[in-house]
């Protein structure tokens, strides 16, 4: 029989043969050696160097591929797992076993397992919304003569570059990029920022004003023209084109943009309501006044953004935005039921639409977190906390 040792000898041990197993000359706890269970797809990602661990020292670590996030669980094993290295252990001469022995380097107390998880994007929202980019900074940015002000103004703010975000937020690159997009964040001077809603309001109104003035159609806006006009009105060009991205969408395979009535109307509704509760009639009246000619407001546009409540004969409307709610199902349902103990499906659905939980359907989520009641056979079901 060929003289081989290490793991190869164990794996290839022929029928009818035997070999001695010893403790390795370097046998010990070797806490720097970890076992990670991974399916074939992940193994291939890992070999292609596409995998990282992310988390702060006080957080549970997650493993991220390019597109997915996995929670890491340590699974202990009360069996003894004798770990046998190959006879030649590259990169660690000290541990290499030259005597063709089969020896145990470590007894593994268990291994790490991966469970697909939702990205932890609430933190992204929280850190970006803490310092929105507002009018004050725009002035400093436009004021080229005063460099000092620019720098001292930013020094006190906690701002995040892409690499800071990767180090802070537990999400894969793809999930992080989608998260930034859904927050309408923009990279300014290397830092990812969200734009202050009041400042966006000023740009949007100026853009709409220009549309009227220059007789542009909302469905056929030329990016260069729009940006040049706004720059002439002293808005930074980067923010001018960002405004198109926030309130519009690109017309198929052209350089043209179209304003999305829903997004524009929603913006004005939020501007009117703010923290207030308003009578539905007066809200609708004020809202109508703000909507530019050529667009039509419909109450359904506000799904997932406002709620109504009936007090006596009066219906009142107030802001309750899905964007302000936590993204984990447990916390989401808890906030929803704290806000209102019973929900009809038509009201509840807009607040759940964006919840994507690996391996759990919407039906499954409802079963897990809600109690469903149907007062009458033909009545719509009502959901309450479990």
């Amino acid at each position, binding site marked *: 029989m060929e003289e081989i040792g290490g*793991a190869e000898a*164990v*794996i290839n*041990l*022929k029928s*009818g043969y*035997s*070999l*001695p*197993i*010893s*403790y390795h*000359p370097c*046998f010990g706890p070797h*806490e*720097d*050696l*970890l*076992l*990670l*269970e*991974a399916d074939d797809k992940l*193994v*291939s990602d*890992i*070999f292609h*160097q596409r995998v990282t*661990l*992310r*988390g*702060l020292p006080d957080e*549970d*670590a997650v*493993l991220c591929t390019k597109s997915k996030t996995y*929670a*890491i*669980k*340590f*699974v*202990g*094993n*009360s*069996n*003894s*797992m*004798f*770990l*046998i*290295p*190959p006879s*030649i*252990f*590259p*990169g660690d001469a000290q541990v290499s076993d030259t005597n063709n022995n*089969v020896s*145990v380097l470590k007894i*593994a107390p268990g291994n*790490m397992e991966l469970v697909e998880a939702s990205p932890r994007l609430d933190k992204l929202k929280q850190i970006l919304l803490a310092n929105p980019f507002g009018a004050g900074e725009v002035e400093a940015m436009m004021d080229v003569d005063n460099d000092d002000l620019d720098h001292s103004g930013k020094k006190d703010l906690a701002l995040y570059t892409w690499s800071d975000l*990767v*180090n802070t937020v537990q999400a894969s690159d793809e999930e992080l990029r989608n998260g930034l997009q859904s927050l309408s964040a923009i990279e300014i001077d290397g830092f990812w920022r969200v734009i202050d809603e009041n400042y966006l309001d000023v740009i949007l109104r100026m853009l709409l004003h220009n549309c009227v003035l220059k007789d542009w159609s909302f469905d056929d806006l030329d990016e260069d023209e729009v940006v040049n006009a706004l720059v002439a009105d002293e808005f930074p060009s980067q923010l001018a084109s960002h405004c198109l991205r926030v309130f519009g969408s690109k017309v198929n395979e052209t350089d043209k943009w179209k304003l999305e009535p829903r997004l524009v109307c929603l913006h004005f509704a939020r501007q009117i309501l703010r923290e207030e509760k308003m009578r539905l009639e007066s809200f609708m009246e004020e809202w109508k006044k703000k909507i530019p000619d050529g667009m039509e407001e419909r109450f359904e546009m506000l799904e997932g953004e406002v709620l109504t409540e009936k007090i006596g004969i009066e219906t009142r409307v107030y802001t309750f935005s899905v964007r302000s709610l936590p993204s984990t199902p447990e916390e989401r349902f808890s906030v929803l039921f704290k806000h209102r103990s019973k929900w009809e499906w038509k009201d509840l659905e807009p607040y759940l639409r964006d919840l994507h939980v690996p391996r759990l359907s919407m039906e499954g989520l409802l079963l897990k977190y809600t109690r469903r009641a149907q007062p009458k056979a033909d009545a719509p079901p009502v959901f309450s906390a479990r």
Partner: protein
Amino acid sequence: MEIRVKCRCGEEECSEWAIVELQGVVETQASFQGSIQNLEIGRLCHSDSSQGTYTFTVGYHELVGSKVTLKKPLLVLKKLQFDEVSGKATELEVVGIIRTKILFKTRPKPLISGNNNLSLNKLKPLYCFIISACFNNVVSVCTIE
């Protein structure tokens, strides 16, 4: 903090490690004083009579088991820590992959027969088995250090 999982080898060249797994814990007898490095644990035998059966003889005990292909491979990762100018950095490097293990899931059988009674005393050092009462796996959560 971000820790990159690196590997210097490709999937094909990645060296294969092996696991021999048995119930409970193997311990040296209380009387054994020396260091256990280099000490022989036992003899692994791939049975001749029935394919796929392995025995592992430890001291007076014999275990019977089989070779198992893991449903999901285990990667052997090594945590590398080094000081950079800017501070401490950690990396994980894949140093091996485990696709098979030899699993002994039965309890050990004592090896006593009339013929070798005398020779038993010559087996040094002696091992004993501690079979844990509970085989439930314990799950906990990991953090990055």
